[in-house]
């Protein structure tokens, strides 16, 4: 058989390669793409006969350039990025020499692998849809490269293959879903090196108010919350992420030492771990379920203080909740928070020291101002705070997302006395500084504020642009209290959300999509619906893990009794088998045409009379032969032939009537007694032996 693939098969392959490789340019070295395109174009030219098949020298050169480029690209080795790049290069170069069907199948299987590997970089719904496109094209290619007889023109062929591929994937989907939801989820078999594309999104562990932030403008989703109890007011939704204690004069960070995540986790013990006895529960709990988008960070965001947290999490002494591993896949937790509780009536020595640190000798003007106000307030903390907030409110302080730079030294002075323009970080940072300057323990809290209520899905969606920084201060007998100095400058930032605030203040986003959807109700409802879909996608597909599976199965089955499980499985697979047989048309026996049925009936009747028609013999010829031996059959046979021809070939024939007549003749033929005389003597035949 011809093992080289056809022209349309080759086109299929190239299309599939292109579709599969395209999304990787966002994550891998950009120059991979031109190489791939060049390979594809070369291949096309070879197909068209414009270029020769690349010689092995050229191929070696290309591979050397490709591998050399990867070495120079500085991707860490070993890493998945580099493995994927090599895989992609091979995938591209393979197209230079694809000739046989076997090669084509290798390329297609590699393509399936790449479609799957792309999901290591993103599991967004759009990426999922793109994956379906990739799978469809690859399956079409798999069908297209099979050896086949060509009866259609190339375009029709491609269209029919594409249709078949899509149909097959659609029909396979129910089984895929059954397996997806029922297959047991195992824990990782071994620990892995760095994940590819481990980009961190969301809030940062460092805050440098003097640098310009662009975080606030990202429309990416951070997490969604489902409230089990009544939804708190917008102004109460302060989602704590982490606290920043150490200030070096320019940047705020968590601890004096700059820990990365793994090392930070090791610190969470002893004094740094949350002791539940330090909380005095007050008021009613807010119960909720939160689904966090993958962020590449371990931080989770909860209302303070979150207790009874279900999930793979640790809780830290500063009341933050963190995941036990870096958040690569959506993570779902359940928590109850008691916002009215009293926290840390006693503050440990270490924590107090952390919350009191200030850089030596920096910001003399701010120190002076703090001492002045502290005296004015009569050393009363509440008075003192009122003075500060009043100052922010009365004087010309502005809330802006593009504040001027503050230099490297005395940044607090520069903000409070000179620029007076800033966003939450500036206000929170200065506030904490002013507190510490008079000996009140204080720290910066970063996280998110507010969120957007989705009426359709009844959940709160918190986006990156809701990121926020506020403060908490500690007082004896009272414990920690949260303050948000930004409200003094821009109260609507908190009560109405950033969107409307920015719209009023700066007109910054008037051109942007977000501003547009606020003005167009239908667009707004559309985005809400899309967001709802995203939520379901994250919740049921991407975030489907062992816990979700357990809950789902308990909901469906009640309990896991053998009987229930067997019934459920039988129902599912039986239903699927039924759907498939009906859909594929396998349930009905292949039917004969009326003509075929008549001939087969006729042959049967005459076989009973002892006449076997040679399959190659025409009916007329056969009738002549039989009539010669059995004159008594001649008349009905002639009639049958006549009616039959009438039925098959006369366009004006009355089909039903002719059919009736034909059946009558057959009955007559059946009734005529076969005579011994007329029996054909079967010709002597050699017995069958397996060798010809």
């Amino acid at each position: 058989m011809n093992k080289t693939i056809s022209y349309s098969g080759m086109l299929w392959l190239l299309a599939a390669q292109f579709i599969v490789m395209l999304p990787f340019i966002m994550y891998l070295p950009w120059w991979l793409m031109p190489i791939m395109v060049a390979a594809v174009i070369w291949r096309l030219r070879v197909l068209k006969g414009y270029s020769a098949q690349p010689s092995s020298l050229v191929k070696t050169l290309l591979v050397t350039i490709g591998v050399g480029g990867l070495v120079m690209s500085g991707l860490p080795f070993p890493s998945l990025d580099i493995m994927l790049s090599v895989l992609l290069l091979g995938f591209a170069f393979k197209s230079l020499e694809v000739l046989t069907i076997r090669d084509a199948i290798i390329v297609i299987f590699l393509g399936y692998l790449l479609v799957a590997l792309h999901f290591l970089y993103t599991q967004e719904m759009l990426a999922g849809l793109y994956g379906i496109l990739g799978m469809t094209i690859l399956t079409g290619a798999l069908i297209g490269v099979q050896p086949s007889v060509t009866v259609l023109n190339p375009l029709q062929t491609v269209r029919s293959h594409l249709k078949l591929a899509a149909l097959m994937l659609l029909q396979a989907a129910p089984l895929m879903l059954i397996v997806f939801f029922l297959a047991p989820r195992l824990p990782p078999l071994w620990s892995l090196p760095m994940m590819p594309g481990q980009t961190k999104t969301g809030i940062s562990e460092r805050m440098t108010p003097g640098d310009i932030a662009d975080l606030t403008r990202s429309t990416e989703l951070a997490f969604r919350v489902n409230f089990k109890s009544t939804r708190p007011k917008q102004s109460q939704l302060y989602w704590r992420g982490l606290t920043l204690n150490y200030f070096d004069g320019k940047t705020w960070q968590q601890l004096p030492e700059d820990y990365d995540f793994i090392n930070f986790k090791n610190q969470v013990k002893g004094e740094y771990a949350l002791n539940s006895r330090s909380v005095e529960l007050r008021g009613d709990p807010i119960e909720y379920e939160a689904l966090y988008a993958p962020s590449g960070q371990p931080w989770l965001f909860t209302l303070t203080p979150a207790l009874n947290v279900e999930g793979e999490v640790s809780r830290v002494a500063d009341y933050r909740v963190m995941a036990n591993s870096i958040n690569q896949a959506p993570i779902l937790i359940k928590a109850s928070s008691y916002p009215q509780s009293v926290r840390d009536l006693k503050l440990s020595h270490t924590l107090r020291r952390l919350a009191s640190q200030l850089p030596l000798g920096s910001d003399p003007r701010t120190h002076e101002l703090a001492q002045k106000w502290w005296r004015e307030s009569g050393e009363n903390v509440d008075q003192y705070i009122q003075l500060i907030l009043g100052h922010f409110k009365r004087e010309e302080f502005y809330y802006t997302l593009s504040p001027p730079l503050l230099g490297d030294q005395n940044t607090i002075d520069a903000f409070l006395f000179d620029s007076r323009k800033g966003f939450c970080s500036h206000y929170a940072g200065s506030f904490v500084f002013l507190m510490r300057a008079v000996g009140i323990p204080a720290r910066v809290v970063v996280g998110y504020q507010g969120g957007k209520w989705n009426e359709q899905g009844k959940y709160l969606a918190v986006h990156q642009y809701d990121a926020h920084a506020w403060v908490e201060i500690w007082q004896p007998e009272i414990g920690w209290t949260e303050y948000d100095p930004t409200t003094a400058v821009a109260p609507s930032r908190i009560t109405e959300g950033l969107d409307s605030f920015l719209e009023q203040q700066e007109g910054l986003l008037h051109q942007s999509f977000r501003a547009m959807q606020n003005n167009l109700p239908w667009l707004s409802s559309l985005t809400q619906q899309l967001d709802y879909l995203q939520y379901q996608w994250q919740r049921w597909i991407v975030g489907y893990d062992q816990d979700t599976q357990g809950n789902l199965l308990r909901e469906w089955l009640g309990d896991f009794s053998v009987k229930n499980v067997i019934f459920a499985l039988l129902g599912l697979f039986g239903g699927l088998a039924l759907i498939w047989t009906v859909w594929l048309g396998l349930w009905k026996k292949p039917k004969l045409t009326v003509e075929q049925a008549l001939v087969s009936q006729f042959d049967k009747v005459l076989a009973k009379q002892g006449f076997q028609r040679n399959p190659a013999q025409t009916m007329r010829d056969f009738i002549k032969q039989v009539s010669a031996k059995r004159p008594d059959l001649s008349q009905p046979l002639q009639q049958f032939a006549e009616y039959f021809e009438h039925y098959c070939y006369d366009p004006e024939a009355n089909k039903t009537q002719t059919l009736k007549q034909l059946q009558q003749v057959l009955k007559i033929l059946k009734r005529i007694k076969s005579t011994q005389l007329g029996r054909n003597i079967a010709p002597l035949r050699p017995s069958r032996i397996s060798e010809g």
Partner: protein
Amino acid sequence: MLLPNAWEQRWQIWLDERLPAKNQHTFAQRSIFIIPSLSGLALLVLLSLLMILGINFQNSLIYVVCFWLLALFVLNVLYTYRNMAGVTIKALRIQPCFANSKAVIELEISRMPSRTHWNLVLEWPEQDQILIELASCQSTRITLSHLASKRGYFVPPRIKISTTYPTGLARAWSYFAPDLTGLVYPEPIKQDTPLASDGSAEIEGKVLAEGGSDFNEMRRYRAGDPIQRIHWAKYAQTGELYTKSFVDYASAAIWLDWNQLNIVGTERRLSALCAQVLEFSANQIPFGLKLPSKTIEPATGDSHRDQCLKALALHGLPYE
């Protein structure tokens, strides 16, 4: 087959029982076998790799790809089965051939009106194969050839019919054993010395009716004479129609006599006789054939030739 001999035999016996020889067969559940093809097995390897990736990275969408391909693999079996179920294969005839040449079987493949079939391969492994489709037509006639090594009856071995449509991940196949035999004439091997013996001289030169090989005379046109034989040149000269007439001569009834052959070995004798029969027939020389068990009177023509060849083919074999 890679099976050991004993198993191979069992398999053949089982096949004979399962798929007895007949001239028409419609493939259905009982007669279709399906297993994953090589690329199907390769896909399973890929699936295990994807599974490991999915588990290790705890990545739901990799699971989805893995399970979707698995589902496709399973569904594909049904597609492949459907591509073969309902195909009717009918053996029409096997043309006679000579030993050591190809015996050709004519087959008719047809489908039910409600189904279409793509990429069916019919083959005699290592002999001949053909790729067909049954979508653009209701039925199609094909030929398949097989080396006939011995004279006598050619009993066609099982024809393998297989398909990997649509994705090549599974292979469905079955066998069709035609209940037909084909005559295999001896291999014609021409001898240098003539074989024929003249029976008696008196018939030599006797004119045998109106033949077609030798020019005899020119005579006046009679109604009914074939138009090709009109002598147009003469007509142009004389203005009258003349017909050229031809005759065959019975060149003294040549006999091909088995007992008078000066050749050793049955098969070699038959081969030599076969070649001679073909030569005489091609030249329209009347001849007769005398075999130990059979005598065929002198004559000419295709049916005479076939009769002689058949006698040669079956000489000494138990069928006749």
